[in-house]
């Protein structure tokens, strides 16, 4: 950790635009996920057949869909599906990935080979195939979708953590911890992982953006939350046939997805700028 040693007493923190923009956008989405259905101007399920496929108007700001449901209300109410699937899958992937990667890197040898082999095996299963397999076995559900996304993210987190732990294993302070009689598990928990936390945080926030995309794509294919629930991917899928006569039907969920991905990615970039000493100069 020569960089830290060489740094002045307090590193000067410039206001981080990425962190600010990404963070406030994310905050907005989280608020929507919690309060969405209450704030929505209409019941997201209520059909107003006189407004069928109506383009944006004063009454329906984002228009209405094929059965006259208010799109703005559906987007607002649907935030919780997309966001919770993304967060849950990334959290699960982080938990498993960090455990696998740190054990492989810290203990090395046969353990490392076994874990790395398992992770490589996981890498060969496309998330789409896994999602279909789960859906066909237990039916389409948000849980199945989450498991499929999580499984596809485990390898990248595990590999990242493993390489960081391998680096840290060579550090003097990790060896010093062994010389005071600490058990390997305790060394891992007290001295290795705390120094790997920044790469884990950055990677998971960037993966969360991807999880939104993958989740929406699988939802579009009908593998996750089932209509009529207002999940964005499912909304896209349902509007596909009306694409030519009512393009506003796909615009709204499409934009919502893009905005959420943008929020996660910007936030992740901001975190990286903050944590990664190599990215400081610009």
């Amino acid at each position, binding site marked *: *950790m*020569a960089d*830290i*040693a060489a*740094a002045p*007493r307090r590193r000067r923190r410039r206001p981080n635009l990425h962190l600010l923009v990404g963070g406030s956008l994310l905050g907005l989405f989280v608020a929507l996920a919690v309060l969405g259905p209450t704030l929505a101007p209409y019941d997201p399920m209520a059909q107003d057949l006189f407004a069928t496929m109506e383009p944006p108007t004063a009454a329906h700001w984002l228009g209405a869909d094929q059965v006259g449901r208010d799109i703005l209300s559906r987007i607002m109410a649907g935030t919780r599906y997309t966001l919770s699937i993304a967060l849950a899958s990334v959290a699960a992937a982080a938990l498993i990935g960090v455990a696998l990667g740190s054990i492989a890197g810290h203990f090395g040898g046969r353990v490392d080979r076994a874990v790395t082999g398992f992770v490589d095996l996981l890498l060969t299963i496309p998330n789409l195939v896994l999602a279909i397999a789960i859906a066909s076995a237990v039916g389409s559900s948000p849980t199945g979708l989450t498991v499929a996304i999580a499984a596809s993210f485990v390898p990248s987190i595990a590999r990242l953590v493993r390489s960081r732990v391998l680096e840290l294993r060579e*550090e*003097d*302070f990790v*060896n*010093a*911890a*062994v*010389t*005071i*009689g*600490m*058990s390997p598990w305790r060394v891992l928990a*007290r*001295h290795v992982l*705390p*120094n790997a936390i920044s790469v884990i945080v950055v990677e998971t926030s960037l993966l969360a953006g991807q999880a939104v995309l993958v989740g929406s794509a699988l939802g579009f294919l009908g593998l996750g939350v089932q209509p009529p629930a207002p999940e964005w991917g499912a909304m896209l899928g349902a509007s596909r046939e009306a694409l030519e006569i009512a393009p506003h039907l796909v615009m709204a969920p499409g934009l919502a997805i893009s905005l959420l991905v943008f929020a996660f990615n910007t936030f992740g970039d901001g975190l990286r700028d903050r944590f990664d000493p190599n990215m400081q100069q610009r």
Partner: protein
Amino acid sequence: MDDVLAIEGLTVELDLSRGRFAAVRDVSLTVGRGEIVALVGESGSGKSMTALAVMRLLPEPPALIAAGAIRFRDKDLASAPEDVLAGIRGDRIGMIFQEPMTSLNPSMRAGPQVAEVLALHKGLDGKAARKRVEELFARVRIPDPARRFDDYPHQMSGGMRQRVMIAMAIACDPDLVVADEPTTALDVTTQAQILDIFRAFRDEDGRSTLLITHDLAVVAETADRVAVMYGGRIVETAPVERLFEAAAHPYTRGLIASIPNPDEDIETRGRLTEIAGAVPALWAMPKGCAFSPRCPRATPRCADEQPSSETIAPGHVVACWNREDAR
């Protein structure tokens, strides 16, 4: 004097891709209670490996203790199981490393890192641990211990961090401190202060120290007894005054002769003496005395036959066929 540590015939082999080689050969060494023993040698002489072998910190494999015993508190550390070793490390033997800049966890405050040892071996935590750490900080002469407790390593100088490491090493009041080049990375002023601390440990607490160094100036200032290592073997052991007055091994003589003498006039003192050549590689060790290729007094016998150790004065043991007797 009863011995705290007794290394007997220790041989450490390394399993490398080009074969197996002994990096430490038949090393015997004792450290008595309240004694500072220096283990001196140049890079590659096996001194650090010996120190790490005592703590059983060598990566096994590739390293392997092929023969010998490390006696410490009626146990043989050379064959002790890992859980016994973990109980001894940090509690009964404290270790200090060369690099204070990287030996502390950068993401943790200094005090809690020392407190960790106390929690591990003494079950001490919270306020009691903090109080003990502040006492330890004062003992290693860290000014304002209460404030330094909450400093991060990057807020400390190298000398300060080395004091923290020393505080960590003595936290559980160990029987033995193993210090591997503890002052090499520090400037001379700090170096003198750190050596002062080691001497105070010996004089006030009767603590035993195994000091690994390549610096004879450090040895002269600190140690009671000296063992000189070359090519994985101890070539000469002597009390410190005796060594500087009447070194009998040509290698030790060479080392002493290569210390610059500041009292000599710069105009007349001439070129600094050096020992020609370099330490032979592990796989190119001569059959006989490892120093024979560089030795000014070498005879054909030296290259063929390993010299036996002989006691030439009380506590003075030399392994050389053509030793230089006292002038």
